[in-house]
């Protein structure tokens, strides 16, 4: 199974090297502006929409399998189509119409959409899909697609002009879900040619991409004539770009901006809604003492003050978490969060023989709030008699495997990704995954289930195990905030992609 660290980061909403840091001075002081859910007004056709996202500097690329910064992902979303995609948290057909497991064969049949045209005017065929599969899973590539862990693309065969048969490596009940979950854009290998609603007009890595509407798009053609996507790495700079009128929209902005509000009547601050939240928390190392003992893990869960963390770290923009990642995705177990109980936590710690123990928590400012939340949690756990030593490192070293193995907890966040993705990513790290046979069985069953009730049951079991003795501590669900001109409309947020929304239907009202 080849899961790269970068992909792990992508789930946390950041590109490979993007360093999220607070920066220059904030917005003009003003009264509080209420935060609104994404506007559903209809945009007017035509015009230019300008948006700014976190860039990846010189490493940005038009190749959907190279660039990994949010701006890359936003651009890839509108230039290329996947076989399946999410709408809300349901899978819907895109370039493929259906993916049906072939009983007893360890394979599935893929049926493609007819009458799709590439940006260069050629017709879309099954061979193109095969070429894309080969391209994305090529071992020479820096990040071969994670889908290769489930599907054997090398043995895939074209069975008709618009049909393919693809063997699987393990029982997969719903291939479309996996194809929608992982980035699997269909592209003409080596060229920046896709089938999406926009095609590239001009591009400068780390600065800007100008995209123009593709008139022969298979679905409804895009709303805006032109899309200008700018790259900035500094969160404050992104906000400043909108504040000073240089851009119309930016997302993933610091909470402080929302707190300050904006004095400009043309602008508003939006949230991505309850489905577009990011789970903030910690993963405890269940392979060594003291967190090898489930009672010690439980003690931490009981010992933290979730509301205080939400108020301080998220400035109130979010809700307390229930220790499970994936809030907002399908099958998520949205039970009530634990209430703080310091006494019980102390008792549990004592039972686990960990009273007064010293543990090391690793943090880096991967996302705004990582270091702050670690500091606050350390303060809170001190009240239980658990001494937390903070190991604060630089961003590039954060996921150093050896160091991860030596720490007792690391700060972690993950968006509303589909549960298979969330759990496979946690399992990818020996020290992040929970070594639990029952959990493994439940996860396998969830992946293999072909019918909905079985899937739901398997996920319920898995999440019950995580609730009972899991190693994740999710204290909060953070809102994803964006700043936009009020006239910006049609911005769609897809599950787990709150930081790189879909702009294919967006425009100015």
């Amino acid at each position, binding site marked *: 199974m080849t899961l790269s660290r970068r992909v792990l980061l992508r789930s946390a909403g950041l590109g490979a090297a993007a360093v999220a840091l607070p920066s220059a001075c904030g917005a003009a002081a003003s009264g509080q502006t209420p935060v609104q859910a994404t506007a559903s007004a209809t945009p007017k056709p035509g015009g230019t929409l300008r948006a700014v996202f976190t860039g990846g500097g*010189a490493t940005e690329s038009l190749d959907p399998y190279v660039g990994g910064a949010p701006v890359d992902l936003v651009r890839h979303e509108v230039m290329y189509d996947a076989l399946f995609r999410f709408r809300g948290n349901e899978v819907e057909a895109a370039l493929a119409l259906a993916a049906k497991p072939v009983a007893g064969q360890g394979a599935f049949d893929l049926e493609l959409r007819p009458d799709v045209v590439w940006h260069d005017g050629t017709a879309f065929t099954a061979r193109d899909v095969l070429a894309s599969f080969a391209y994305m899973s090529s071992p020479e590539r820096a990040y071969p697609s994670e889908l290769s862990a489930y599907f054997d693309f090398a043995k895939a065969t074209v069975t008709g002009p618009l049909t393919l048969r693809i063997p699987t490596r393990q029982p997969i009940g719903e291939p479309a879900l996996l194809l929608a979950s992982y980035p699997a854009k269909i592209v003409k290998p080596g060229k920046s040619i896709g089938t999406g609603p926009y095609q590239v007009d001009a591009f400068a890595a780390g600065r*800007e991409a100008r995209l123009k509407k593709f008139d022969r798009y298979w679905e409804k053609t895009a709303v805006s004539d032109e899309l200008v996507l700018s790259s900035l790495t500094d969160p404050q700079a992104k906000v400043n770009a909108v*504040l*000073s009128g*240089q851009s119309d929209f930016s997302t993933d902005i610091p909470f402080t901006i929302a707190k300050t509000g904006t004095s400009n009547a043309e602008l508003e601050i939006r949230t991505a809604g309850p489905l577009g939240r990011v789970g903030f928390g910690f993963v405890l190392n269940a392979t060594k003492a003291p967190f090898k003992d489930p009672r010690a893990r439980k003690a931490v869960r009981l010992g933290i003050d979730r509301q205080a963390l939400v108020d301080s770290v998220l400035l109130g923009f979010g809700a307390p978490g229930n220790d499970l990642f994936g809030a907002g995705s399908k099958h998520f177990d949205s039970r009530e969060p634990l209430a703080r109980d310091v006494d019980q936590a102390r008792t549990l710690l004592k039972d686990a023989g960990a009273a007064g123990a010293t543990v090391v928590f690793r943090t880096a400012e991967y996302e705004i709030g990582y270091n702050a939340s670690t500091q606050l949690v350390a303060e809170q756990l001190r009240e239980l008699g658990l001494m937390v030593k903070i190991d604060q490192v*630089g961003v590039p070293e954060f996921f150093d495997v050896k160091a991860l193995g030596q720490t007792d907890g690391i700060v972690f966040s993950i968006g509303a990704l589909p549960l298979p993705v969330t759990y496979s990513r946690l399992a*990818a790290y020996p020290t992040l995954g929970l070594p639990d046979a029952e959990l493994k069985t439940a996860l396998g069953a969830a992946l293999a289930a072909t019918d909905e009730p079985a899937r739901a049951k398997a996920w319920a079991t898995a999440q019950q195990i995580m609730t009972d003795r899991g190693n994740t501590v999710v204290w909060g669900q953070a809102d994803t905030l964006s700043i936009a001109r009020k006239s910006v409309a049609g911005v769609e947020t897809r599950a787990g992609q709150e930081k790189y929304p879909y702009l294919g239907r967006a425009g100015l009202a």
Partner: protein
Amino acid sequence: MRPVHPLLRHALSGLAGNVVLLAGLSFLVFVGVDLLPGDPITSRLGPTATPERIAAVRAELGLDQPVLTRYGDWLAGIVHGDLGRSAAGQPVTELLSGRVGNSILLACLATACLIPLSFGFGLAAARRRGRPADRAISTGSLLLLSVPEFVVAGFLVLILAIGLRLLPAVSLVPAGSSPVRHSEVLVLPVLSLLLVGLAYATRVIRAAAAGTLRAPYVEFLRLSGQSERTILRTAVVPAVLPVAVQIWLLTGVSMIGGAVLVEKVFGYPGIGELLVTSVQTGDLAVVQALVLVLGGATLAVLLIADLAMVLLTPRLRTGGGAE
């Protein structure tokens, strides 16, 4: 006696020395970065990559070779004008080309503004030594020197871009264009760099001018009935110029590499971002190229500053003369 003009000989020997120095420097950095914790392969492949896969990529990139061999290969590449490839596989020359130019543009513009301003303020303050104008200039530059540049930049954005909306807050440069054609995005970054550099240059020029104004030959000119204007023009300016040129050149070149923080605040498409990420991820080829470019530029400017000093000082320019 001398077949080569002494100045030319000085320049040539300086150039040769600089090349040697740069080679030494690049070697040090090469070995140094190699020892850094960040490993381009593991950061590229992720922690779950199999040992065979890591070994294969290492071999592919030639990283299994001893460090000396790799340095040799890198040097050979330089001779052929090839700066190598980044860990992500892009040619370094491509990564750097536009960005280096943009950073240099910023530094050049800031220096161009710095020259007249620092000279004017420095001389004005020196002429009015101890009087209110001098106090104002000296205190002002002292205060400016005392605030970190990213704070200065932040305040400028807050006031000029967001408050008054006079200028763009971030330096968004359209694809396929260059900052030159969108001069409005240059104003604030240049201003931020300028303010910090100006404070320093003004102080140095003021000190040099004040020193010259106390020199015996200035007293002699006064006693020969020369006007203050003439004295300033004929005696003080030529004496301050060699010092000033040095400061301008050094400040200017330090702005190329020193603009990292300012570039970050404005999202300016310079080398700043590249500098930070390449060091942190141990992207040796990029770090090396940056060291080469920035180090080479600095050494070249140091040499030019040396030559300018010689050219502007008659005693040095004409050699010893009759003794």
